[in-house]
């Protein structure tokens, strides 16, 4: 119930560096102090790349105001109408791109068939966890964990927004899973805490938001999907689909990462995060299917299409990130925008 460790001070992250005109206008607007500030004028061009660095970073910053905010940015900016207007324009582009690009389309509503595709284990898969398990190097594992920190240091927070949008049994089961994510009453077992411990064990900086400038758009897009679906009641079906995708696919991937950490002689805390997820997500998979999705769709059958969309959108963004990581590493170069100290400097310099 009570932590054995002293609480860490809550420090909002620093604002990131801009990546284009959109994120520059947003960050400059957020920087203005409370006296001088006015509405943030943020024209979002229709031809802006919905998956690009500029839009994804600007969207990420808008969402971050709902989590920890940024150092020096007044807290009431969270509900600034000019920011919400700009956010909505970016969300329209992002959502439209996802609906157009999801494999199989955005109109199917067979949730059981979609879940079944996640419940088989490909034997000859070539994902990031397969690579790290087989032949990943320590610098690649550290890059992977640094990038994942953008989500895992707020693990379960985006999905917590959906609780108030669910009813009855689906709500109860969702809370049961989230309770487990938050350590089931033990603050030292919170998954975000276990992730920070893993970062420390890998000699990464575990401060919230530390690697934002290093994270490419592919990383931000995954977190933005969760935040967008969590913050919009109308996307509650997609949020549950996204959550189910993580819970259904996590155990086997986590098991491979446990083996990767052990093969690389990582410290126990670096093994523990993924070891916990093998076991926890084997439970969560069952709860999300039987406890959340089944009763939610029984009560609101019309949400089926968005559940399928949430699953497919998660898969699409995961594949994009996976491709970026594997292509970068295969070329012997960092996948980060600013490399960690031990990343190879020259292309092809790794054995």
């Amino acid at each position: 119930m009570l932590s054995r460790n002293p609480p860490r001070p809550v420090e909002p992250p620093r604002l990131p560096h801009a990546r284009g005109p959109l994120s520059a206008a947003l960050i400059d607007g957020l920087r203005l102090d409370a006296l001088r500030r006015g509405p943030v004028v943020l024209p979002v061009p229709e031809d802006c790349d919905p998956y690009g660095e500029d839009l994804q970073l600007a969207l990420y910053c808008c969402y971050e105001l709902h989590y920890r905010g940024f150092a020096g940015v007044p807290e009431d900016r969270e509900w600034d109408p000019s920011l919400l207007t700009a956010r909505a324009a970016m969300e329209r582009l992002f959502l439209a791109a996802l609906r157009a690009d999801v494999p199989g389309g955005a109109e199917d509503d067979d949730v059981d068939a979609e879940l079944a595709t996640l419940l088989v284990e490909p034997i000859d898969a070539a994902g990031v966890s397969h690579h790290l398990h087989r032949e990943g190097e320590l610098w690649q594992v550290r890059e992977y964990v640094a990038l994942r920190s953008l989500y895992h240091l707020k693990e379960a927070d985006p999905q917590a927004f959906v609780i108030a949008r669910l009813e009855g049994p689906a709500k109860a089961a969702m809370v049961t899973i989230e309770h487990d994510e938050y350590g089931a009453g033990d603050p030292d077992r919170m998954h975000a805490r276990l992730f920070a411990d893993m970062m420390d064990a890998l000699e990464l900086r575990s401060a919230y938001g530390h690697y934002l400038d290093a994270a490419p758009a592919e990383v931000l897009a995954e977190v933005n999907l969760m935040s967008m679906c969590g913050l919009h009641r109308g996307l509650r079906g997609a949020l549950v689909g996204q959550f189910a995708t993580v819970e259904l696919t996590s155990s086997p991937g986590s098991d491979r990462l446990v083996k990767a950490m052990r093969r690389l002689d990582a410290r126990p805390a670096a093994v523990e995060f993924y070891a916990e997820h093998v076991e926890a997500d084997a439970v969560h998979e069952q709860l999300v299917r039987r406890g959340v999705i089944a009763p939610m769709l029984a009560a609101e059958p019309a949400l089926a299409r968005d559940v399928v969309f949430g699953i497919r959108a998660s898969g699409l963004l995961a594949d994009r990130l996976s491709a970026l990581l594997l292509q970068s590493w295969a070329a012997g170069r960092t996948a980060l925008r600013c490399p960690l100290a031990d990343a190879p400097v020259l292309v092809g310099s790794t054995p």
Partner: protein
Amino acid sequence: MPEARPSGGQRPESPREIVLTDDGPMLVSGPVEIVLPDGSRVRSDRPVTALCVCKRSRRQPFCDTSHRCRVRIGDSTEEEDRAQPESASTR
């Protein structure tokens, strides 16, 4: 899909809920202590615990999803053999 409520929450006076899944683990609600065949005890403080019943898990007595069918990419037919209990070096 069973009409069970594997939600973990139950009144103290009600019997413990155990959910049997068709092809996966046994779901037991509340903290449990499991006695293994060799007499040793394992405790789970999770709201719900998934106990392996297919004996394929490498994290006995807990489920690690090894009961799942394994398929080759691009091949829709499921493999006959599922993950084997000792095939620790999967893939």
